[in-house]
């Protein structure tokens, strides 16, 4: 039974305590390869010890990345993306900067790249930059979390475990991109209010509770089902999602062809979100 496996993981986790960073043992299914993976799973009867080994041998096979095409983006598209994302994840719209929750949002060039702001770059200045969690390769938020509620998965996604989060907000202080939001109030209160005005919930996705931190999760729940992230689905011409570790992936191909910016590279966090300019 899986409980035994949990115990094993606990022991394994404890024995590798000294190692920094949460190196979880599981590889995410690739989009469109769900079925093949399912078969593979079958051989192991739900046990994933093998996957761990495989990864050690060859290094990470997956590192998800998001490319945002600043040439394709428009104000309307940006708004659509934000709307889609927040509805897909039942993010309430507090309409109040104090309590707001933002998974993805619009921001001006000046605030997106404050340290490398080039005031003569008038093209960029007018563009609606979309900000989201950068799913850094070296995430400071995961480093500071005292309970590993936020952690970097082997596929590069910086995940947030709402069930474990104690709400200390250390990650918010640590995130150099301001990507994290805290549920200052019970999100359901607001959602109910909005629902009364006609908002629909995404019934496949839970809500959060007050007192935990949340952020963009690269639609990990959709990836698991073999789908693209919601934002990509909303505007496939603006948002490009793919595997950075795979040289032949769509994103690598685009990056080879276009000039891209990443935020605050000098901090060494290695963001996985690229702005194509």
């Amino acid at each position: 039974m899986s409980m035994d496996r949990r115990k094993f993981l606990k022991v394994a986790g404890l024995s590798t305590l000294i190692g920094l960073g949460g190196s979880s043992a599981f590889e995410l299914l690739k989009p469109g390869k769900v079925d093949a993976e399912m078969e593979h799973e079958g051989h192991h009867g739900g046990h994933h010890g093998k996957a761990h080994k495989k990864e050690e041998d060859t290094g990470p096979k997956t590192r998800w990345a998001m490319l945002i095409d600043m040439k394709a983006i428009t104000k309307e598209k940006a708004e659509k993306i934000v709307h889609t994302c927040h509805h897909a994840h039942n993010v309430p719209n507090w309409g109040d900067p104090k309590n707001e929750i933002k998974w993805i949002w619009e921001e001006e060039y000046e605030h997106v790249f404050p340290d490398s702001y080039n005031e003569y770059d008038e093209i960029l200045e007018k563009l609606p930059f979309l900000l989201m969690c950068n799913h850094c390769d070296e995430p400071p938020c995961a480093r500071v979390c005292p309970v590993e509620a936020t952690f970097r998965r082997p596929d590069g996604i910086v995940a947030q475990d709402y069930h474990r989060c104690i709400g200390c907000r250390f990650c918010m202080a640590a995130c150099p991109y301001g990507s994290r939001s805290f549920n200052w109030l019970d999100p359901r209160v607001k959602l109910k209010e909005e629902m009364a005005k006609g908002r629909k919930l995404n019934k496949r996705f839970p809500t959060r509770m007050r007192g935990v931190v949340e952020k963009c999760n690269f639609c990990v729940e959709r990836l698991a089902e073999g789908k693209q992230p919601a934002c990509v689905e909303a505007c496939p011409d603006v948002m490009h999602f793919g595997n950075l570790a795979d040289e032949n992936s769509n994103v690598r191909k685009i990056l080879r062809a276009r000039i891209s910016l990443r935020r605050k590279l000098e901090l060494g966090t290695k963001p996985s979100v690229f702005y194509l300019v």
Partner: protein
Amino acid sequence: MYDSGKVIIGLLIFAGIFLFPFVYQHGAPAEKPKPSLDTPAIKALPVKKCVEDTHFMITTHMQFLNDWRDQALRDGNRWYVNKAGKKVWISLQNTCMKCHSNKKDFCDKCHNYAAVQPYCWDCHYDPNGSKL
């Protein structure tokens, strides 16, 4: 000095405290809840079987769900292979609640009976209900 009055009062209080459950229930047993399995999804099932056997599910579902939660969220593992070798998609809201689309008559019944308030529902909800 006997203080028999005080002793009798004391004994009455003692008896009152210890007989409280009997008095409170005044001979009327509460009905043992029978969680309803009467949902379209279950009806449509060829074999009415949960992920694991019923006794296991009754006694251990909390631990089981907790384990699922960690697998899905932390380990990124979305597939569970049950004892019979069948694969099940790990999701409270999208797997469990698909069959048990009657939270009120299924989950809540026993939980209320046993005065258990699981914190599952702080985030999860009945996708079939109209309310959060």
